[in-house]
């Protein structure tokens, strides 16, 4: 659902939203980070140059997950010791949103979930511990320290200059996965599952020299 557009307070380019609950976006022309206020857009910063990126997904990529159509409206790029990964922000056609992570072309779709229990602090999580969410046992696997490398497009929260952040990965026996995101207090829980690229039936993907 598109919303009436505004103009970038920095360069005057038209800026519109595809995700009605977006709290911020970036100007596609001048890379200003724009936060929504009651009346208009406010520039809070500028995106640094994004690293070279070879994800086949881009803002505007469309696909289907479950029975719902989605469009990719934003992303967060994280760096860690073994490179970087993308968290693509998906706006579904029923007004909800989710995330698709693309870590070296391994794809997961996940959603913000209510843990219903008190999540352990990051420094108290031991690998191999079991946590139960929605009647599924998850085992904690790795704790990753990453940092924000950049943002692009529409996000459901306001960007502020986070640096290092800690993630704890969870896996179930049947291949479902989860992430505890310690960038906020209390921490956030995302639950989801790996997806096959072909199953998402994506359109408007990037092209690769020598492959199309």
């Amino acid at each position, binding site marked *: 659902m598109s919303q009436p557009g505004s103009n970038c307070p920095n360069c005057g380019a038209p800026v519109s939203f595809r995700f009605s609950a977006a709290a911020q976006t970036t100007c596609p022309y001048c890379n200003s980070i724009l936060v929504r206020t009651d009346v208009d857009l406010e520039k809070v910063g500028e995106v640094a140059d994004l690293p*070279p990126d*070879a994800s086949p997904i881009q803002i505007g990529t469309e696909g289907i997950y479950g029975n719902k159509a989605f469009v990719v409206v934003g992303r967060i790029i994280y760096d860690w010791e*073994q*490179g970087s990964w993308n968290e693509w922000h998906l706006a579904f056609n029923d007004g909800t949103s989710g995330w698709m992570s693309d870590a070296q072309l391994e794809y997961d779709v996940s959603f913000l979930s209510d843990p219903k229990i008190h999540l352990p602090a990051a420094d108290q999580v031991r690998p191999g511990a079991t946590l139960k969410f929605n009647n599924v046992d998850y085992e904690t696997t790795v704790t990753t320290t990453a940092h924000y490398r950049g943002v692009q497009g529409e996000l459901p929260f306001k960007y502020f200059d986070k640096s290092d952040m800690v993630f704890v990965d969870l*896996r*179930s*026996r049947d291949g479902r996965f989860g992430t505890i995101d310690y960038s906020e207090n209390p921490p956030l829980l995302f639950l989801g599952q790996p997806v096959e690229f072909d199953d998402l039936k994506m359109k408007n993907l*990037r092209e690769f*020299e020598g492959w199309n």
Partner: protein
Amino acid sequence: MGPGVPQPKVKAQSLHCPNCGGPIELRGFAHSLTAVCAGCLSVLDASSPTLHILQKIQEKNRRKSKLPLGTRGKFGNTTYELTGFQTRGIEADGETYEWGEYVLFNPYKGFLYLTEYNGHWNVVRPIRALPEMIRAARPAAKMNGEVYRHFQHASARTVFVLGEFPWRVKVGETVVTDDYTNPPKLLSSEGTGSEITWSLGEYVTGQQIWQTFGLKDSPPVAYGTYVNQPNPRTGKSSATGKVFRWSVLALMLLAAYLFVTARRETVLNERHHFYPGQTGEQSFVTPEFELKGRTSNVEVKTTTDVENNWMYLNYALINSETGAAYDFGREISYYRDSDGTEGGKNDSIRVPAVPPGKYYLRVEPEGDAKNSPVEYDIIVRRDVPSILFFILGFFALTLPAIASAWSSWRFEYTRWQESDYPKVSTTSSSSSGDDD
């Protein structure tokens, strides 16, 4: 519309080796974290714009890739390009065993791997599920309801790298690996410390790999038995088993039919006496008797009263119409002393496949002149079914199954000899120092 400035087509970067100036093309785009110069074997940080040199591999450590990097082939519906090659090795019993690993890349689907050892190949995919560990004397792992038996725990060292890798590689680096087998599948874990990754391999032949990449020469010959090589007997023994089950059933039906319909008819029962010392003609012929029904066997039974004595009988079953004769000789001897007994007083023989008709027996008894006289009965019966033939038939039928099971067992034996759990533990044969 929103931020929809379309991104340009992703291009493969063409760079130069900072050490020798040779060309470096990054086929894995920005996914390649490490690249190796094919010319001077410098290991380069592909994520740094200047291709920072991380390591230099000595030329003497160069290994030859069995597949040409840059070649593409289809796995399922997806085309992959060979982008990286590494050799890894383990030390066991003072020897180093090396195998090859290949990185395959598709810009949409990601990475796939091939491994090769002694001409045995596996297509390997990373998996996301966490297998369940079954801890026992012989541990196993369970995934999707299938049990994978632990094969080997090892420490794998990177010996050589070439091409590009989506992770940071380093020659000399060691990881702990565990292999779990359920042929043709192989579940492997690999990790350092708390981070363990799992992958699932599937056995393929060199022929299949060569076909996939359209290579003209021949794949290296596979030798030995590989950890997850399918036992060639498993499929065949089920076919053998099927034939076996049907044959046994047919045999049993035939036996049942013959047992039910057998005549078991006594056609002759005569008593005779044999006086060994007697001069003159001892042979005689019996009265004629009729063998009825289908072509079937004839049982000739001889019961005697020999005791510490013997006699020999030359028999001929003669068709009185055609003159066709079945000759057979029987020796009957029975001895008894304080040590026990030897031989028997009675004898029975079956003459197979005798057509119906009128017959008589010609009997020619023989014995040493000083032997005691013998009283004996000759009983001739028509169509006496023999369970023995069916038992023999049954064993004949089991032979292929036994051969198949044996060959299957041999295959598993050689497979597991290479594991942490050899079927027969080998004692070190340190006899080489012996004097002759």
